[in-house]
């Protein structure tokens, strides 16, 4: 497949066409053999694709899993990693502005992964960087590699072309579901939004999705849609969103996924951006429906693909 992949940075999923996303997903598939742990001696699949390249992980907010995942992806392709931890970052942040830090650090590395508490930080950083910038999460804004790994999981399950997906939980504040819904609209997916009344998908985002051609349904009840979908994408409902703790317990209970619910649709797969707290019953973890740990693993090949594409490999 030949695709003009002209983007120098990965800032927001909105910047990408469907063809560019497809290209990243197919690169992820090619690189997946190098992503796995190598248990058998002699049968290792080793890659030196990114040998001599350095990734700078700039994390101004704690996020162990995303940072580990980027580090693993880089190292499995033979590259190296330098890290600015969140505590170091906060002391940097007290004095120097982000623009200057980026100008300096981009002189020390070949690519930057940036996690920052302010929305739009990566877009700004990209304009000051001499090397590619990957947005690893900006406040309540975008987290494009999460969206890509969600898409990759759906693709690996063979469901991307005829997708009927329920996005469940906090659809108002949850950034992952906004970007994911947008990306899925490019694939003509049918979207079911399932949330408590107070946490519904914002109107402006629904308008956006409809403009992009997505078919959208809304419900407050999972049972109403469970038979209609092939994917349940579950997100956390945060206690802080509810002034009344009793109200929270009541609502959260209604959206909990358990083995009883899965009986209504035995083929449905369950995804979650993790970390999960109690929105999925532990008994679900061992079922064939649960894909969220696999989904977390898929972050490695997807980030490998992103790193290698940005580094021209």
């Amino acid at each position, binding site marked *: 497949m030949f695709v003009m992949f002209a983007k120098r940075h990965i800032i*927001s999923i*909105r910047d990408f066409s469907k063809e560019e996303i497809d290209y990243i997903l197919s690169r992820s598939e090619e690189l997946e053999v190098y992503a796995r742990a190598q248990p058998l001696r002699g049968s290792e699949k080793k890659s030196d694709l990114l040998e001599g390249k350095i990734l700078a992980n700039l994390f101004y907010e704690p996020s162990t899993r995303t940072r580990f995942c980027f580090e693993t992806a880089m190292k499995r392709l033979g590259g190296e990693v330098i890290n600015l931890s969140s505590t170091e970052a906060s002391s940097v942040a007290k004095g120097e*502005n*982000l*623009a200057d830090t980026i100008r300096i650090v981009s002189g020390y590395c070949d690519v930057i992964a940036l996690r*920052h*508490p*302010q*929305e*739009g*930080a990566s*877009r*700004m950083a990209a304009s000051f960087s001499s090397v590619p910038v990957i947005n690893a999460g*900006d*406040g*309540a*804004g*975008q987290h494009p590699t999460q969206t890509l790994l969600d898409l990759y999981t759906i693709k690996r399950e063979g469901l991307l072309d005829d997708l009927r997906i329920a996005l469940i939980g906090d659809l108002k504040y949850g950034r992952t579901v906004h970007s994911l819904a947008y990306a899925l609209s490019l694939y003509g997916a049918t979207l079911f939004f399932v949330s408590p009344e107070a946490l519904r998908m914002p109107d*402006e985002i629904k308008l956006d999705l409809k403009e992009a051609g997505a078919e959208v349904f809304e419900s407050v009840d999972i049972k109403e849609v469970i038979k209609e979908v092939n994917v349940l994408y579950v997100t956390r409902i945060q206690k802080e969103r509810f002034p009344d703790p009793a109200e929270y317990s009541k609502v959260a209970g209604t959206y909990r996924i358990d083995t009883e619910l899965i009986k209504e649709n035995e083929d449905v797969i369950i995804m979650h951006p993790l970390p999960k707290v109690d929105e999925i019953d532990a008994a679900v973890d061992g079922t064939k429906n649960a894909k969220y740990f696999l989904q977390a693993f898929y972050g490695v090949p997807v980030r490998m693909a992103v790193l290698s594409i940005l580094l021209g490999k």
Partner: protein
Amino acid sequence: MRKKMKKELKIVPIKNGTVIDHITAGQALNVLKILGINARTDAVLSVVMNVRSKKMGRKDIVKVEDRELKPEEVDKIALIAPNATINIIRDSEVIGKHSVYLPKSIEGIISCANPNCISNAEKEPVISKFITVSENPPRFRCVYCERIMEDVSGSL
């Protein structure tokens, strides 16, 4: 004096200059702000607010004497007054009339309504930037945080 004013909208007839008509009621002062006209100006100005209008119910009008405002100067007015018309006056006659068009992108002028947007960070060397996603009603997407802003009159 008062009687005369009541009868006609043309409170202050001007010989040469620009009349910005059909401004969304209440936005005249924001129009001046966008045009960069402030208290230090020496331009002869008249501002009329909340007058009756057949087309709009109520409207504001701004008249600037001896200055013919250029389209690129006035288009930004569309941010808050999408129905404004610009009338160029010469020798007391209207010799040109045009509408305002929202620019495709807007740099500076308005600030993002999201307090946590990097474009509002004081210590960063960054200027706000918005992409126009729809003209009427005006809607803008912040290039940085990607939030949509609808009413920008409070963010000038």
